[in-house]
Protein backbone atom coordinates (compact mmCIF):
# COMPACT_ATOMS: atom_id res chain seq x y z
CA UNK A 1 0.00 0.00 0.00
CA UNK A 2 1.23 3.47 -0.75
CA UNK A 3 2.27 5.83 2.03
CA UNK A 4 -0.69 8.19 1.73
CA UNK A 5 -3.20 5.37 1.65
CA UNK A 6 -1.63 3.84 4.73
CA UNK A 7 -2.00 7.15 6.54
CA UNK A 8 -5.59 7.51 5.38
CA UNK A 9 -6.60 4.12 6.67
CA UNK A 10 -4.84 4.72 9.98
CA UNK A 11 -6.76 8.00 10.31
CA UNK A 12 -10.02 6.21 9.54
CA UNK A 13 -9.30 3.57 12.17
CA UNK A 14 -8.43 6.17 14.77
CA UNK A 15 -11.52 8.26 14.03
CA UNK A 16 -13.78 5.24 14.11
CA UNK A 17 -12.40 4.13 17.44
CA UNK A 18 -12.66 7.56 19.01
CA UNK A 19 -16.29 7.87 17.91
CA UNK A 20 -17.18 4.32 18.90
CA UNK A 21 -15.69 4.76 22.32
CA UNK A 22 -17.51 8.08 22.55
CA UNK A 23 -14.30 9.85 23.39
CA UNK A 24 -15.25 12.57 20.96
CA UNK A 25 -18.46 13.83 19.41
CA UNK A 26 -16.91 14.90 16.16
CA UNK A 27 -13.87 14.24 14.00
CA UNK A 28 -12.71 17.01 11.71
CA UNK A 29 -10.58 15.77 8.84
CA UNK A 30 -10.49 15.63 5.07
CA UNK A 31 -12.52 13.73 2.52
CA UNK A 32 -11.97 13.29 -1.18
CA UNK A 33 -13.24 16.11 -3.34
CA UNK A 34 -15.06 15.72 -6.61
CA UNK A 35 -11.93 16.50 -8.58
CA UNK A 36 -8.42 15.12 -8.19
CA UNK A 37 -6.15 16.94 -5.69
CA UNK A 38 -9.22 18.57 -4.20
CA UNK A 39 -9.48 17.12 -0.72
CA UNK A 40 -11.94 19.04 1.33
CA UNK A 41 -12.62 19.47 5.05
CA UNK A 42 -15.17 17.01 6.35
CA UNK A 43 -17.00 16.48 9.63
CA UNK A 44 -17.61 12.95 10.86
CA UNK A 45 -20.02 12.30 13.71
CA UNK A 46 -20.76 8.59 13.26
CA UNK A 47 -18.20 5.77 13.44
CA UNK A 48 -19.51 4.28 10.21
CA UNK A 49 -18.75 7.50 8.35
CA UNK A 50 -15.07 7.36 9.31
CA UNK A 51 -14.33 5.62 6.04
CA UNK A 52 -14.96 8.95 4.29
CA UNK A 53 -11.79 10.32 5.77
CA UNK A 54 -8.77 10.52 3.57
CA UNK A 55 -5.21 11.80 3.55
CA UNK A 56 -3.23 12.89 0.57
CA UNK A 57 -1.05 15.71 -0.65
CA UNK A 58 -3.98 18.04 -1.24
CA UNK A 59 -5.15 18.30 2.38
CA UNK A 60 -4.07 21.91 2.42
CA UNK A 61 -6.79 23.63 4.45
CA UNK A 62 -5.92 24.73 7.96
CA UNK A 63 -8.44 22.82 10.04
CA UNK A 64 -7.74 24.92 13.12
CA UNK A 65 -10.28 27.23 11.57
CA UNK A 66 -13.10 24.85 12.61
CA UNK A 67 -12.11 24.36 16.21
CA UNK A 68 -12.72 27.68 17.92
CA UNK A 69 -15.19 28.08 20.77
CA UNK A 70 -16.68 24.65 20.46
CA UNK A 71 -18.74 23.13 23.22
CA UNK A 72 -18.43 19.54 21.96
CA UNK A 73 -15.47 17.21 22.17
CA UNK A 74 -13.64 17.22 18.90
CA UNK A 75 -10.84 15.25 17.31
CA UNK A 76 -8.93 16.90 14.53
CA UNK A 77 -6.66 15.49 11.88
CA UNK A 78 -3.86 18.01 12.02
CA UNK A 79 -0.65 18.52 10.14
CA UNK A 80 2.21 20.68 11.41
CA UNK A 81 0.84 24.10 10.51
CA UNK A 82 -2.67 23.26 11.77
CA UNK A 83 -1.17 22.32 15.11
CA UNK A 84 0.81 25.55 15.32
CA UNK A 85 -2.39 27.49 14.82
CA UNK A 86 -4.13 25.25 17.35
CA UNK A 87 -1.42 26.02 19.91
CA UNK A 88 -1.84 29.73 19.26
CA UNK A 89 -5.60 29.44 19.63
CA UNK A 90 -5.27 27.50 22.87
CA UNK A 91 -3.09 30.35 24.11
CA UNK A 92 -5.84 32.79 23.23
CA UNK A 93 -8.59 30.86 25.02
CA UNK A 94 -10.27 29.98 21.73
CA UNK A 95 -9.73 26.24 22.05
CA UNK A 96 -10.13 24.19 25.19
CA UNK A 97 -7.28 21.74 25.05
CA UNK A 98 -9.14 19.33 27.32
CA UNK A 99 -11.92 18.98 24.76
CA UNK A 100 -9.62 18.53 21.79
CA UNK A 101 -8.04 15.32 20.58
CA UNK A 102 -5.25 15.90 18.10
CA UNK A 103 -4.57 13.21 15.53
CA UNK A 104 -1.21 14.47 14.37
CA UNK A 105 -0.03 13.71 10.86
CA UNK A 106 3.51 14.59 9.79
CA UNK A 107 3.38 16.55 6.57
CA UNK A 108 5.90 16.77 3.76
CA UNK A 109 4.10 19.58 2.06
CA UNK A 110 0.87 20.03 0.18
CA UNK A 111 0.49 20.40 -3.55
CA UNK A 112 0.03 23.82 -5.04
CA UNK A 113 -2.62 23.39 -7.76
CA UNK A 114 -1.37 26.46 -9.54
CA UNK A 115 1.91 24.66 -10.04
CA UNK A 116 0.07 21.57 -11.29
CA UNK A 117 -1.85 23.72 -13.75
CA UNK A 118 1.39 25.27 -14.91
CA UNK A 119 2.99 21.85 -15.35
CA UNK A 120 0.01 20.74 -17.41
CA UNK A 121 0.09 23.99 -19.34
CA UNK A 122 -3.45 24.82 -18.40
CA UNK A 123 -5.00 21.47 -19.28
CA UNK A 124 -7.53 20.07 -16.80
CA UNK A 125 -6.17 17.48 -14.44
CA UNK A 126 -8.04 14.20 -14.74
CA UNK A 127 -6.19 11.87 -12.42
CA UNK A 128 -3.20 11.73 -10.12
CA UNK A 129 -1.06 8.83 -9.02
CA UNK A 130 1.47 8.79 -6.24
CA UNK A 131 4.78 7.27 -7.30
CA UNK A 132 7.52 7.44 -4.74
CA UNK A 133 8.74 10.98 -4.57
CA UNK A 134 6.87 12.08 -7.61
CA UNK A 135 3.35 12.44 -8.89
CA UNK A 136 2.02 11.18 -12.17
CA UNK A 137 -0.36 13.82 -13.50
CA UNK A 138 -2.85 12.87 -16.17
CA UNK A 139 -4.69 15.40 -18.29
CA UNK A 140 -6.45 15.19 -21.60
CA UNK A 141 -3.95 13.63 -23.87
CA UNK A 142 -0.89 13.98 -21.70
CA UNK A 143 0.68 12.21 -18.77
CA UNK A 144 3.65 13.70 -17.01
CA UNK A 145 5.65 12.79 -13.95
CA UNK A 146 6.79 15.64 -11.73
CA UNK A 147 8.83 15.54 -8.52
CA UNK A 148 6.49 16.17 -5.59
CA UNK A 149 8.92 18.70 -4.19
CA UNK A 150 8.52 20.82 -7.31
CA UNK A 151 4.78 21.01 -6.85
CA UNK A 152 4.44 21.85 -3.18
CA UNK A 153 3.32 25.26 -1.93
CA UNK A 154 6.05 27.81 -1.32
CA UNK A 155 4.94 27.94 2.30
CA UNK A 156 5.52 24.19 2.65
CA UNK A 157 8.96 24.48 1.12
CA UNK A 158 10.22 26.61 3.99
CA UNK A 159 8.12 24.99 6.70
CA UNK A 160 10.25 23.45 9.44
CA UNK A 161 7.36 22.19 11.49
CA UNK A 162 5.88 19.41 9.33
CA UNK A 163 5.83 17.29 12.49
CA UNK A 164 3.04 18.43 14.82
CA UNK A 165 4.48 19.99 17.98
CA UNK A 166 1.66 18.68 20.17
CA UNK A 167 -0.67 15.73 19.59
CA UNK A 168 -2.62 13.03 21.38
CA UNK A 169 -1.87 10.46 18.76
CA UNK A 170 0.62 10.51 15.93
CA UNK A 171 -0.05 8.77 12.68
CA UNK A 172 2.86 8.04 10.36
CA UNK A 173 6.58 8.53 10.70
CA UNK A 174 8.09 11.89 11.38
CA UNK A 175 9.36 13.83 8.43
CA UNK A 176 13.03 14.79 8.39
CA UNK A 177 14.21 18.15 9.76
CA UNK A 178 14.74 21.04 7.40
CA UNK A 179 17.31 23.81 7.54
CA UNK A 180 16.51 27.15 9.15
CA UNK A 181 14.32 29.40 7.04
CA UNK A 182 16.47 32.21 5.65
CA UNK A 183 13.52 34.30 4.46
CA UNK A 184 15.15 34.72 1.07
CA UNK A 185 11.78 35.69 -0.36
CA UNK A 186 11.53 38.65 2.01
CA UNK A 187 14.98 39.95 1.15
CA UNK A 188 13.89 41.39 -2.20
CA UNK A 189 11.20 43.47 -0.51
CA UNK A 190 13.56 44.59 2.20
CA UNK A 191 16.06 45.78 -0.37
CA UNK A 192 13.56 48.36 -1.65
CA UNK A 193 13.62 51.99 -0.61
CA UNK A 194 10.59 53.26 1.33
CA UNK A 195 9.19 54.86 -1.82
CA UNK A 196 9.71 51.67 -3.78
CA UNK A 197 8.09 49.65 -1.03
CA UNK A 198 5.09 51.91 -1.09
CA UNK A 199 4.87 51.53 -4.85
CA UNK A 200 5.22 47.76 -4.59
CA UNK A 201 2.49 47.56 -1.97
CA UNK A 202 0.25 49.85 -4.00
CA UNK A 203 0.76 47.74 -7.10
CA UNK A 204 -0.06 44.55 -5.24
CA UNK A 205 -2.98 45.81 -3.18
CA UNK A 206 -4.63 47.83 -5.90
CA UNK A 207 -5.83 44.40 -7.01
CA UNK A 208 -7.69 43.77 -3.76
CA UNK A 209 -11.47 43.65 -4.11
CA UNK A 210 -12.01 43.55 -0.33
CA UNK A 211 -13.83 40.22 -0.48
CA UNK A 212 -12.19 39.32 2.84
CA UNK A 213 -11.58 35.73 1.75
CA UNK A 214 -8.11 36.02 3.27
CA UNK A 215 -9.64 36.99 6.58
CA UNK A 216 -12.14 34.16 6.52
CA UNK A 217 -9.51 31.57 5.63
CA UNK A 218 -7.20 32.62 8.46
CA UNK A 219 -7.65 30.52 11.60
CA UNK A 220 -6.51 33.49 13.69
CA UNK A 221 -9.07 36.00 12.34
CA UNK A 222 -11.98 35.48 14.67
CA UNK A 223 -13.01 38.89 16.02
CA UNK A 224 -16.75 39.35 16.31
CA UNK A 225 -16.25 42.60 14.46
CA UNK A 226 -13.20 43.09 12.30
CA UNK A 227 -11.64 46.54 12.46
CA UNK A 228 -12.54 47.05 8.81
CA UNK A 229 -16.22 46.69 9.66
CA UNK A 230 -16.10 48.92 12.70
CA UNK A 231 -17.88 52.25 12.51
CA UNK A 232 -16.97 53.60 15.98
CA UNK A 233 -14.46 54.69 14.90
CA UNK A 234 -14.41 54.05 11.19
CA UNK A 235 -10.78 53.11 10.88
CA UNK A 236 -10.90 53.10 7.09
CA UNK A 237 -13.25 53.38 4.16
CA UNK A 238 -15.23 50.33 3.18
CA UNK A 239 -14.66 50.97 -0.52
CA UNK A 240 -11.63 49.79 -2.46
CA UNK A 241 -9.14 52.59 -2.69
CA UNK A 242 -5.54 51.51 -2.79
CA UNK A 243 -4.69 53.41 0.41
CA UNK A 244 -7.57 51.80 2.24
CA UNK A 245 -6.66 48.42 0.82
CA UNK A 246 -3.11 48.83 2.05
CA UNK A 247 -4.35 49.85 5.46
CA UNK A 248 -6.68 46.86 5.58
CA UNK A 249 -3.86 44.49 4.71
CA UNK A 250 -1.38 46.21 6.99
CA UNK A 251 -3.88 46.05 9.85
CA UNK A 252 -4.64 42.42 9.12
CA UNK A 253 -0.98 41.51 9.04
CA UNK A 254 -0.20 43.52 12.13
CA UNK A 255 -3.01 41.77 13.95
CA UNK A 256 -1.38 38.48 13.02
CA UNK A 257 1.99 39.44 14.50
CA UNK A 258 3.21 36.65 16.73
CA UNK A 259 0.11 34.66 15.82
CA UNK A 260 0.65 33.78 12.18
CA UNK A 261 1.88 30.21 11.64
CA UNK A 262 2.61 30.98 7.98
CA UNK A 263 0.17 28.27 6.88
CA UNK A 264 -0.55 30.15 3.68
CA UNK A 265 -4.34 29.93 3.98
CA UNK A 266 -4.80 33.63 3.21
CA UNK A 267 -2.64 33.41 0.14
CA UNK A 268 -4.48 30.38 -1.22
CA UNK A 269 -7.85 31.98 -0.55
CA UNK A 270 -7.18 35.16 -2.50
CA UNK A 271 -9.16 35.13 -5.74
CA UNK A 272 -7.06 37.99 -7.11
CA UNK A 273 -3.76 36.21 -6.71
CA UNK A 274 -2.32 38.88 -4.44
CA UNK A 275 0.96 37.92 -2.84
CA UNK A 276 -0.39 38.10 0.70
CA UNK A 277 2.40 36.01 2.12
CA UNK A 278 4.82 38.70 1.06
CA UNK A 279 3.57 40.81 3.93
CA UNK A 280 2.80 38.11 6.47
CA UNK A 281 6.23 36.59 5.96
CA UNK A 282 7.87 39.93 6.56
CA UNK A 283 5.98 40.13 9.84
CA UNK A 284 6.88 36.55 10.76
CA UNK A 285 10.53 37.37 10.13
CA UNK A 286 10.39 40.56 12.19
CA UNK A 287 8.80 38.75 15.12
CA UNK A 288 11.36 35.98 14.94
CA UNK A 289 14.30 38.34 14.74
CA UNK A 290 13.07 40.81 17.35
CA UNK A 291 11.63 38.48 19.92
CA UNK A 292 13.02 35.07 18.97
CA UNK A 293 9.43 33.96 18.76
CA UNK A 294 7.74 31.60 16.33
CA UNK A 295 4.01 31.09 16.53
CA UNK A 296 2.75 27.90 18.11
CA UNK A 297 5.98 25.95 18.26
CA UNK A 298 6.21 25.98 22.04
CA UNK A 299 2.93 25.71 23.94
CA UNK A 300 4.51 26.99 27.15
CA UNK A 301 5.80 30.20 25.63
CA UNK A 302 3.79 33.40 25.84
CA UNK A 303 3.05 34.99 22.48
CA UNK A 304 5.57 37.66 21.51
CA UNK A 305 3.19 40.59 21.80
CA UNK A 306 1.59 39.35 25.00
CA UNK A 307 4.71 39.68 27.04
CA UNK A 308 7.15 42.38 27.97
CA UNK A 309 10.72 41.42 28.67
CA UNK A 310 13.26 43.88 29.94
CA UNK A 311 15.68 42.73 27.27
CA UNK A 312 13.25 43.04 24.38
CA UNK A 313 15.15 44.68 21.56
CA UNK A 314 14.07 48.22 20.80
CA UNK A 315 15.78 49.10 17.54
CA UNK A 316 13.11 51.70 16.81
CA UNK A 317 14.20 53.92 19.68
CA UNK A 318 15.80 57.19 18.73
CA UNK A 319 19.06 57.49 20.62
CA UNK A 320 20.41 60.75 21.91
Amino acid sequence: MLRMQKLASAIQDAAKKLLEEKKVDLVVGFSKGSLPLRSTPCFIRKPEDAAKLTWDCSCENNLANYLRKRQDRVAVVAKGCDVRSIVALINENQIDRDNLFIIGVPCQGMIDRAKVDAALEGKDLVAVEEKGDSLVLKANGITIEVGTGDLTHDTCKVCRYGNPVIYDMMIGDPVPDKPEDNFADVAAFEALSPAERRAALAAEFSKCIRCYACRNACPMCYCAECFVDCSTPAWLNKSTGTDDNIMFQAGRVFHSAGRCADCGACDRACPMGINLRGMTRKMVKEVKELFGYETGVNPDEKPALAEFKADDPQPFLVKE
Partner: protein
Amino acid sequence: MEWEPKIVAFLCNWCSYAGADLAGVSRIQYPPNIRVIRIPCSGRINPLFIMSAIKNGADGVLTSG
Protein backbone atom coordinates in the same frame (compact mmCIF):
# COMPACT_ATOMS: atom_id res chain seq x y z
CA MET B 1 9.91 76.08 -1.71
CA GLU B 2 11.44 73.03 -0.21
CA TRP B 3 9.16 70.12 0.60
CA GLU B 4 8.15 69.97 4.24
CA PRO B 5 6.90 66.72 5.70
CA LYS B 6 3.74 66.67 7.78
CA ILE B 7 4.37 64.94 11.07
CA VAL B 8 1.90 63.61 13.59
CA ALA B 9 3.24 62.91 17.07
CA PHE B 10 1.66 60.76 19.75
CA LEU B 11 3.21 61.85 23.02
CA CYS B 12 2.81 60.35 26.46
CA ASN B 13 1.40 62.90 28.86
CA TRP B 14 3.92 62.03 31.54
CA CYS B 15 7.21 62.23 29.71
CA SER B 16 7.39 63.22 26.07
CA TYR B 17 4.52 65.66 26.20
CA ALA B 18 6.20 67.18 29.23
CA GLY B 19 9.39 67.24 27.18
CA ALA B 20 7.61 69.13 24.41
CA ASP B 21 6.39 71.61 27.02
CA LEU B 22 9.93 71.97 28.30
CA ALA B 23 11.13 72.71 24.78
CA GLY B 24 8.60 75.54 24.84
CA VAL B 25 9.62 76.85 28.23
CA SER B 26 13.23 76.74 27.01
CA ARG B 27 12.19 78.47 23.77
CA ILE B 28 13.86 75.81 21.66
CA GLN B 29 12.79 76.60 18.11
CA TYR B 30 11.73 73.79 15.80
CA PRO B 31 9.79 73.56 12.55
CA PRO B 32 6.04 74.11 12.86
CA ASN B 33 4.96 71.13 10.79
CA ILE B 34 4.25 68.79 13.67
CA ARG B 35 0.87 68.16 15.27
CA VAL B 36 0.87 66.62 18.70
CA ILE B 37 -1.79 64.29 20.06
CA ARG B 38 -1.56 63.88 23.82
CA ILE B 39 -2.20 60.40 25.14
CA PRO B 40 -2.24 58.98 28.66
CA CYS B 41 0.61 56.53 27.99
CA SER B 42 2.55 55.36 24.98
CA GLY B 43 0.77 52.05 25.58
CA ARG B 44 -2.36 53.81 24.35
CA ILE B 45 -1.01 53.99 20.80
CA ASN B 46 -3.00 51.58 18.71
CA PRO B 47 -1.03 50.68 15.57
CA LEU B 48 -4.15 51.61 13.65
CA PHE B 49 -3.71 55.23 14.81
CA ILE B 50 -0.34 55.29 13.13
CA MET B 51 -1.66 53.72 9.96
CA SER B 52 -4.64 56.08 9.92
CA ALA B 53 -2.39 59.09 10.34
CA ILE B 54 -0.27 57.96 7.43
CA LYS B 55 -3.31 57.17 5.34
CA ASN B 56 -4.62 60.64 6.12
CA GLY B 57 -1.55 62.20 4.62
CA ALA B 58 1.01 62.33 7.39
CA ASP B 59 4.50 61.83 6.04
CA GLY B 60 5.84 60.70 9.36
CA VAL B 61 4.55 59.62 12.73
CA LEU B 62 6.49 60.10 15.94
CA THR B 63 5.49 57.92 18.86
CA SER B 64 7.21 58.72 22.08
CA GLY B 65 6.82 57.67 25.66
